[in-house]
């Protein structure tokens, strides 16, 4: 009898334990500030101009560090003085420490496997240069490609990189997408500027904007890559929001460009 009673007590206790754990897990999930979806909703894509630009920069800055928030301020001196004005001695000391340090932006999370990163400067043998100021990271489970944008005083360019199946870099310029789309869809082949291009890939990917100036392609995009018989390439991004971006340019050999890595120094 006592054995039966002991068994019942044990079963009740472990059952309560399981229910308790389940309840705690549910609460934990509910308390999270937003997994994927929530994070996307907070993204600044909907906000116009200045606010969007600021938020884009913020999006690249790792959250936990104090330095990250200070990197967003227009001038280090101004940031330091603002901090000192609003807080007591500890903050003032912190601000002074910051002033004494070299002025650099917050470190960023590297995108593994890609030949270049946000903030890098690319230099072609032909002399053209590109400062990778912003971009769209295109992911499945992990990032599979990045479309960087490089602002220039004369004309902007774009750089598309993939890490797999082999290291690839396209040097591109924006193009009117209507010249490529057929019935609103990326065709399997297209002729543009007297060159025939065949579609090599058509990938549904999830975009994430980084840095400054990246095109807004919503939260899901189809990426179509086209290749000519030579080094010419076409790239088409068709967002679920209806936005379409197209680019044309060249695939570059690794020996025909160099990358000046930004390291932790910028953006």
């Amino acid at each position: 009898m006592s054995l039966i009673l002991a068994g019942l007590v044990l079963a009740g206790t472990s059952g309560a334990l399981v229910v308790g754990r389940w309840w705690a897990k549910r609460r934990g999930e509910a308390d999270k500030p937003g997994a994927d979806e929530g994070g996307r909703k907070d993204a600044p894509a909907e906000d116009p101009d200045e606010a969007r630009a600021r938020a884009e920069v913020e999006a690249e800055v790792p959250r936990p560090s104090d330095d990250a928030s200070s990197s967003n301020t227009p001038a280090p001196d101004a940031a330091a003085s603002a901090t000192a004005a609003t807080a007591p001695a500890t903050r003032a000391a912190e601000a002074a420490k910051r002033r004494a340090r070299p002025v650099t932006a917050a470190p960023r999370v590297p995108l593994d496997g890609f030949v270049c990163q946000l903030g890098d400067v690319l230099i072609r043998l032909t002399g053209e240069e590109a400062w990778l100021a912003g971009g769209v990271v295109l992911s499945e489970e992990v990032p599979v490609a990045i479309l960087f944008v490089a602002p220039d005083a004369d004309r902007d360019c774009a750089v598309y990189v993939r890490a797999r199946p082999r290291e690839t870099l396209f040097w591109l310029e924006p193009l009117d997408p209507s010249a490529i789309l057929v019935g609103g869809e990326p065709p399997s082949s297209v002729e543009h500027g007297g060159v025939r291009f065949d579609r090599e890939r058509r990938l549904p990917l999830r975009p994430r904007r980084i840095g400054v100036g990246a095109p807004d392609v919503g939260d899901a995009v189809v990426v179509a890559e086209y290749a000519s018989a030579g080094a010419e390439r076409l790239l088409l991004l068709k967002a679920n929001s209806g936005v379409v971006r197209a680019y044309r340019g060249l695939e570059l050999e690794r020996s025909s460009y160099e990358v000046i890595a930004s390291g932790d120094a910028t953006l």
Partner: protein
Amino acid sequence: MKGLYAIVDTTLLARRGTDPIEYARALIEARPAALQLRAKELPAREILFMLRALGPMCRQAGVPLVANDRADLAALAGCQAVHIGQEDLPYELVHRIAPQLAVGVSTHSLPQLERALAPRPRYVAYGPVFETSTKVNADPVVGVEGLARASAVARAHGTPLVAIGGITLERVPTIAAHADAFAVIGDLYPEGATLRDVSERACAFQVALGVVPRRGAA
């Protein structure tokens, strides 16, 4: 920003066979208001190398290092500021991409100055005040009166004004009242001068501009 805005011009130094880093070290002894690397003809990799070499020297001396034209390299090298011209990446874009950089803007007319002042850059440069030999295709000379007018406009905005173009030690008395800082290239390094002379001359500029030089090895 007050006093000498010293410019290390690699084209001038190459003609004289002078090492830009050693030259910069000589200038830094006078603790100028800013030190700018101007390397119009060098490839990006070399400019970056120089900026990275100058950075620690400038930081140690408390002299802001300014990159000319290239906001990208300024950001990569951790410079404090970038100086942009009318044909470079615009202020707004530089500020958005690299908010950690202070930005100075070159202007050559009052309308340009007004436009440049609107987004409140760290400083504006105005000139050329006199004929200059170090800039190819220089803009029309604005003269001392033009500088005085620009000075009034910049002061009304509360933005420091840097006078550029043909500034010499001899001309300082006529223009000292019309700007906060004075950009100098050629007159810091007269023909036959040694690096010691360069330091002395930079200090002389500082004194002439009413700044007590805080001299010391960089």
